[in-house]
Structures are given as structure tokens and as C-alpha cells.
């Protein structure tokens, strides 16, 4: 439970003062702010990639466009006419008036951001909402909060039924995975090194959102106890000293070259063939952008880390996830492509 924010207290007092019913069409967003539910929501502006992905999975028809245009390789995995919607940029901490005017010309009924609900994001949301008069909802992007974020977004967009379906899928995945992992003793949990960058020498520190999938799965991230909560660089020598049992990477070039290097090949994970390249079509399964796309990645990674406890067929799960969330059922060949980590 976060600190009782003064704004919240004031909002609470206001609720007491205002007759019941006047607030009936309001909902608390992921940061605990009161957002009036818009009477009509036909156009939604996503403030960044995680919001765009979550909104697409819930209500693709409402999505105004993408913060970054999708690559051609990604389009076959998204609904035609929606995956290729135009690039509309993102609202950043320094969103200036020209940027906001561009937002206004798109006439959104709602702005949604998913990710951090920290103070600077709350202030940005307040400011943009004040300047544009468009309700601006913050969704908590952390794993555990994804079902709640779906429900908030469902209410804001009037898509409560589908939101409930998606939220339940996430909840049941997380509950099932958590329950099985709880029974695994610490010494049977592999030590994992998360490798990014073409040389594999960028990694995610303990609190980093980049390794949220790993920490949710109770894996022992070798870099977890370093100070900091973002990405950092390490030397290959350090990775050798850590000698992880499993390496998870998002970088194809690194995954392909890791065996050829004498130093890498002496690491336990490489010797045992446990270097895993994360799928990334249409969005990354483990890390970026950090949105609901990681839900299927959770199953994928759980199976890799604890094969005995997770006998499920990852193809079936991927097919189900893609069909339900992206509303496109991948063919067998497409599933092969997804699982190969290419693209």
C-alpha cells in the first residue's frame, strides 16, 4: 500500500462533500487518481508502447495509433488495419505544447499510460489532463497489477467484459505459475544471467523492470543484489565468476555467437546448452516493451527454468495467448518463427 497521498485525502474528503451519484462515473486509476469515466470512448491515445500494447489487446478499434510504427515483420501477428496504424509519437516527461497540440488534433477521448505510477508520471498526467481537458489514466505496469489495470481500462473504455476475460487469463496464469514455483526449493532454482546487447554484457539489476519476469519466477538473477534498479554493464570476466546455470537473452546476434567464444563457452549455461533466446514477435516475451506481452513469456520462461514442473506445450499456450490477446491465430510456421526468437 503506498503512502496516503495528500491529493488522495483531499479527493476522499471531496467525495464526502459531494452528493452520492455525482462520482458514479469516476474510477481510480493505477495511481489512485480519480478519473471521470468518459461518456463516449472511441479514440484512445496511448502515451507509450506498454499502454499501446495493452490497449490493443483490450480494444484494438479504439487505438489511435502506435507510439512507434510496428515493423513489417510484426504486422502478420497483429490485426490487419490496426497493426499498421500510423506512428503518433509518445507523451514524454518533456511533452511540449506542440506535442500536445498534435495529440489534440487526433481528438482523443482518453489518454492512457501504462508503466510507472511514480510521482513524476502522476504530475505529467495531471498537467496534460489540465492542459488538454482529456482524461489521462495511469495504469500500473507491474506484473501483479496487470489484471487490475485491465479492469480499470475496461471500465474507462466500456469494455468490461473483455477486460475481465483478459484479466482472468493473466490471473490464472500467475496463480498457477506461482503455486507451482512455491513448491520448488531454493537450491533447485537455477541461477540466471539476463544478457542484453550484441555482446550480452548488459544486464538487469534486481529491481529492474527488465528482469520482472525472472524475479516473478523466483529465479536467482546473478546480478540481483547489485545496487540500482535499471540496466548496467558487466564484464565477461564477471559473468564467468558468476557462472550462471541459465542465460536468457533477447539478442539474436549474441545467442548465435555465444558458443564460438572460448570464454563464454566455459560458462555452465553455455556448456549445458541453456542459453535461451526470447521470442519477440510481435512484442518481446521477456522484456521490451514491458507490457502484457510478457504474460506468455512467463510460461515460456517457467518451462525453461523448471521443465519438470511445467509440462505444458508452449506452442498451445502461445497459440491461445495470441488468439485471445492479439486476436490473430498464428499458423504452425508462424509459431515456429515466434519460438525461434527471430524476427
Amino acid at each position, binding site marked *: 500500500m503506498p503512502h496516503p497521498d495528500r491529493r488522495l485525502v483531499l479527493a476522499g474528503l471531496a467525495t464526502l462533500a459531494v452528493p452520492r451519484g455525482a462520482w458514479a462515473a469516476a474510477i481510480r486509476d493505477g495511481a489512485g487518481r480519480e478519473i471521470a469515466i468518459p461518456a463516449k470512448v472511441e479514440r484512445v491515445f496511448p502515451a507509450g508502447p506498454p499502454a499501446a500494447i495493452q490497449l490493443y489487446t483490450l480494444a484494438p478499434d479504439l487505438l489511435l495509433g502506435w507510439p512507434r510504427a510496428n515493423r513489417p515483420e510484426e504486422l502478420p501477428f497483429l490485426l490487419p488495419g490496426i497493426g499498421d496504424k500510423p506512428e503518433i509519437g509518445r507523451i514524454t516527461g518533456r511533452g511540449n505544447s506542440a506535442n500536445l497540440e498534435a495529440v489534440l488534433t487526433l481528438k482523443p477521448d482518453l489518454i492512457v499510460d501504462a508503466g510507472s505510477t511514480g510521482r513524476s508520471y502522476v504530475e505529467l498526467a495531471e498537467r496534460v489532463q489540465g492542459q488538454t481537458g482529456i482524461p489521462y489514466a495511469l495504469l500500473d505496469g507491474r506484473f501483479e497489477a496487470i489484471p487490475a489495470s485491465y479492469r480499470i481500462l475496461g471500465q474507462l473504455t466500456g469494455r468490461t467484459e473483455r477486460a475481465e476475460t483478459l484479466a482472468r487469463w493473466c490471473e490464472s496464469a500467475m496463480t498457477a505459475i506461482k503455486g507451482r514455483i512455491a513448491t520448488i526449493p531454493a537450491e533447485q532454482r537455477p541461477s540466471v544471467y539476463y544478457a542484453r546487447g550484441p555482446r550480452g554484457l548488459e544486464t538487469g539489476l534486481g529491481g529492474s523492470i527488465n528482469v520482472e519476469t525472472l524475479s516473478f519466477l523466483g529465479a536467482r538473477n546473478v546480478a540481483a543484489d547489485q545496487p540500482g534498479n*535499471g540496466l548496467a554493464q*558487466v564484464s565477461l570476466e564477471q559473468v564467468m*565468476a558468476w557462472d550462471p546455470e541459465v542465460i536468457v537473452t533477447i539478442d539474436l546476434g549474441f545467442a548465435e555467437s555465444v558458443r564460438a567464444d572460448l570464454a563464454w563457452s566455459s560458462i555452465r549455461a553455455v556448456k549445458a546448452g541453456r542459453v535461451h533466446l526470447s521470442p519477440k514477435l510481435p512484442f518481446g516475451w521477456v522484456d521490451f516493451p514491458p507490457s502484457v506481452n510478457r504474460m506468455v513469456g512467463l510460461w515460456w520462461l517457467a518451462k525453461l527454468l523448471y521443465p519438470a514442473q511445467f509440462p505444458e506445450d508452449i506452442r498451445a499456450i502461445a497459440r491461445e495467448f495470441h488468439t485471445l490477446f492479439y486476436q490473430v491465430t498464428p499458423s504452425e510456421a508462424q509459431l515456429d518463427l515466434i519460438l525461434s526468437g527471430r524476427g
Partner: protein
Amino acid sequence: MSPSSLRGNAIALGLLGVAVLLAFGLGRFPVGPADLARLVWAGLSGQPSGLSPQIEAVIWNIRGPRVVAALLCGAALAVAGTAFQGLFRNPLVSPDILGASSGAALGAVVGIYFSLGLFAIQLAAFTGGLVAVGAVYAIGSTIRRGDPVLVLVLTGVVVGSLLGAGIGLVKYWADPYNQLPAMTFWLLGSLAGTAKPDLAPLLGPVLLGTAVLVALRWRMNVMSLPEEEARALGLNTGPLRIAIVTAATLVTAASVAAAGIIGWVGLVVPHLARFLVGPDFGKLLPTAALLGGGYLLIIDTLARTAAPVETPLGILTAVIGTPFFIWLLASARGGWS
């Protein structure tokens, strides 16, 4: 060679030797002094060392290339700084004065933005550095008013700041989850990923540029006199300036391409070298190269041993360089002239 320069070079060589020993002996992966000795013996005698392939890999494939790269980059930045300080007759000049670093940085961030491979990113950085300085020189030469050296410096400053804006723009466009951290790491400077194949593209330009500068040492001495005196001594400063700028840019761009942005080495080390051996470029350039290499090697050893997570080189050189430079300014003995 005068006794003072002998002493100066002895100090620089001693520093370098200590730096190399420390760099090979320290690291996150434990390698004992006995193992090191066996490796050296194996290298000299051609016999197998009998050590685990892991230890061999750490020394030959990880620490070795990194030590060589740190020596080369440090030497390159120091030599370029020395040359530019002489050329511009200004002690506050560093190798990036004509935009070599910002040009290389822009090249690199563009390379990262387009998700190029490692080698292509380094090539883009190297090319960016050369193109930026070429542009500065071309623009500076078309302006016929005022002191040509001052015009060149001012052009370098404005073009450098334009390139900085370009870097900011590419960072702004970049994917915040993937490309932006890569750009940030690159711009802070690091040798964390250095491997053997990185050495050749660094060694070639650094040797070539340094050789040119050493060959021009006598002319550089004359050049650091006021312009009229230099001309009176029969020196045609125009082509000479081009040669010095080209050579210094070559070594700077190669270093930035290999290690990212590392400030302060090219500013501080030339002063230290002058402090040791005086202003004669014949003595100054080799001493600066030795000192620069040793200095950056110590910094890099610190960067990779202080914590499991690497500390960016550019940060360490700034934190160490600033107080050192202030001390150097305060104790101006044997300083500039």
C-alpha cells in the same frame, strides 16, 4: 636526452609497468599470481601452461585485449590532446575541440538507432569523428577574417554543439527500452566488451596518427610559437595544421570508436607530461603516450574491479581528472610555456 626527460620517462614507464601488472593481476574472475607467472612462462617458452582453459580465456581473451585497448586509447587521447594544445597554443584544449568526439558519438548513436552490428557501429563512430572534423576544418578555412586558429576553434565549438543536438535528437527518437540504454552506455565510455577483433581497427589508426605527429615534432615546436614567428622561421603553417589536425583526429576517432566518450584524459595527461619533461614535443609526445596509456589502464582496472557492475570510464576520468586538473593549475611550476 636530458636528465629531466630521462627521469620523466622513467616515471611514465614505471607507472605503465605498475598499471599493466595490476591490470593483469586484478579482476572479477580469480586468477592468482602463480597462474599469471605460469601463463607468462608458457607464452615465452611455447610450452602448454597446464592451466584451465577458463583462466587462459580470462587472461588472453578478456583481460589481455582490454589492457591493450586501454593502453592504446589512453595513449591516443593523450597524444591528440598534446598535439591540439600545441597547435592551438592553449592549455585548455582537449582532443574533442574540433568535434571529433561529438562526431563519433553521433555516428555511434545513429548506428545503434538503426540496430547495426558492433563493427558497423564502431565504423560509424570512426567515420563520424573524421567527417565532423573535416567539416569543421572546411568551414573554418572558408572564413577568411580573423585569426585562423581562433576561427577554427570557434567553428569546432559551434559544430560540436550542433552535433550534440543531433545526438540528443537521435536519443529522443530511440526506443527507450532497448536502444536508449545502449546509447547511454556508449556515451559514458566503456571497454567492457573489448575483444581481440577490436584491437586491429584501433591499433592501425593510433600507430599511424602517432607516427605522423612524432615525425612532425620539430615543426610542432615551431608551431607553438606565435604565428608571425613561425612564419618568420619559414614554416608554412597551413599544410602543417592540416597534417596535425588529421593525425590527431585519426587517433581520437579510433579511440572513441573503440571505447566511447572518455573525457579528461586528453586534457589532463598532456599537462602532466609537460610537468615531467617540459614543452619540447620530441620528448612530450612519447611521455604523454606512456602516461596516457598507464592512466587509462589504471582507470579501466578500477572500472572493472571496483564492483561487479562496471563503472563508466568517462565518469571515473571526470571524477579523478577534475581535482587533479585543479591541483595542476594551482601548482603551475613547469607548466605551459
